[in-house]
């Protein structure tokens, strides 16, 4: 009997912990070992906030030289293939953002010296929105967007 109660108590406090601490941010922090992983940027709730913490600025210039390959209509929001490519010079990093997701910043890729400005991955999208690619060069941020219609959202809930 006592044992059963203890189980319930444990379960309860665990659940409260998870919800209370901004979805695990506090809960997981002791295990966070990666210094380069930008927690503020990835937990940001909108695009400008995410960009400010990730790249130091949210001032982007639209540039059609950034090519985003993604489907016009994604039947399954859980798996949306996205390819970002550009022929710009001196690209330092590329970020992929789905602007209607709860945490819009999905991925950022830091390119080494030999890397070419090309990345391809598959992302989750909560609903129809723009996929935004942000390219960081030595002195500026450029972005481009492509709308993807999502018929079934991929973030569960």
């Amino acid at each position, binding site marked *: 009997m006592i044992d059963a109660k203890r189980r319930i108590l444990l379960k309860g406090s665990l659940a409260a912990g998870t919800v209370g601490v901004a979805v695990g941010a506090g809960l997981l922090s002791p295990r966070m070992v990666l210094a380069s*992983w930008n927690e503020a940027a990835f937990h940001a709730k909108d695009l400008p906030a995410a960009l400010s913490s990730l790249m130091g600025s949210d001032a982007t210039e639209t540039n059609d030289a950034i090519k985003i390959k993604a489907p016009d209509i994604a039947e399954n929001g859980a798996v949306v293939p996205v390819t970002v490519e550009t022929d710009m010079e001196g690209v330092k990093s590329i970020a992929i953002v789905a602007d209607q997701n709860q945490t819009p910043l999905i991925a950022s890729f830091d*390119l080494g010296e030999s890397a070419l400005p090309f990345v391809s991955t598959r992302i989750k999208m909560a609903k129809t929105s723009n996929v935004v690619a942000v390219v960081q060069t030595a002195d500026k941020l450029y972005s481009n967007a492509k709308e993807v219609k999502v018929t079934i959202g991929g973030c569960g809930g």
Partner: protein
Amino acid sequence: MSDIKIRAKLKDGETEVKCLMSHPMETGLRKDSKTGELVPAHFIQEVVCKSKDQVVMTANWSGGVSKNPYLAFKFSGGAAGDPIEITWTDNMGETQSATGEIS
């Protein structure tokens, strides 16, 4: 035994690396359909891609990347037979690494 599949191809001086990782990629926002409780976040945070011990690219991810992530990137200066090493680390501190070869 590794769950990372790597394929690297050299074409016109550019090496295209494609890889598939095996990971649940839980955002921490999804609810378990049976219990109604939130599934704890469990996703890859960092992927480091190296060729001949040189870091070619580092990817930082959130839970917004799809389950069993696919990643492709290109770099110049590779040669057939060069090793490609991919290492991921997730938010639980787990890590996995695999090596492929440019063909």
